[in-house]
């Protein structure tokens, strides 16, 4: 059984100097939203050098396309250069590589909407919960709609002035 370790997945990416932004539910968790998730979602910079760094990190993580039974199909540079979603398994749990997300937004579009957290001395670019809520509010997917009340309330509490009794 794989024991999920989000920190090791993110650490491997940072150790290989991969440029990426953490998005999805885990980005909201970092900012205080009590939501469950089992995977790491990232939007990566799709330059040749960054894709090479990402491939090295994926090799270290024993990454392969999930959902293909016993066949261990390994992603290549062309997969990582596309704007599609690559859904992978790693030795530390699922990792989704997203070329673009809603409205075709790519790494360069999202960087200004990210905030940095320190992870092992490295800055972890994380999509702001405000932007995450904005993107999910435009979504019609039931999964996104179900999660929105918690995200909205977390954002509201982050932005609300702290009370003396808190």
């Amino acid at each position: 059984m794989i024991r999920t370790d989000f920190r090791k997945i993110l650490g491997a990416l940072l150790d290989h100097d991969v440029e990426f932004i953490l998005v999805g539910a885990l980005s909201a968790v970092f900012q205080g939203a009590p939501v469950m998730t089992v995977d790491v979602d990232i939007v990566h910079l799709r330059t040749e050098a960054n894709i090479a760094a990402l491939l090295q990190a994926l090799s270290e993580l024993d990454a392969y396309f999930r959902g293909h039974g016993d066949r261990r199909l390994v992603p290549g540079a062309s997969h990582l250069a596309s704007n599609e979603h690559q859904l992978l398994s790693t030795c530390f749990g699922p990792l989704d590589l997203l070329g673009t997300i809603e409205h075709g937004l790519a790494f360069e579009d999202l960087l200004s909407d990210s905030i940095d957290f320190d992870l092992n001395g490295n800055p972890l670019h994380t999509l702001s919960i405000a932007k995450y809520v904005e993107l999910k509010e435009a979504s019609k997917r039931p999964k996104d709609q179900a999660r929105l009340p918690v995200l909205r309330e977390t954002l509201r509490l982050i932005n609300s002035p702290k009370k003396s009794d808190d």
Partner: protein
Amino acid sequence: MPPEHLQSPQPTLSPADPDAPVEPGTADYAPSGVDRSLIRWMLELTPLERLQVIQDQVNAIQEFKASIDTH
């Protein structure tokens, strides 16, 4: 029904002002039903502690599922 003094207090919604102080023993739910106390608790943690909370939950569920699958 048990006598009144043995009945559990019924949770009540917090005041309309979402930022109003909440009395101890009063459930702190948003109008949407979201448990605000859980969010406040998460906000008191560091980002890495929040990550650890979710990771521990995922692993606990996976271990529970594995224990069921083996029986």
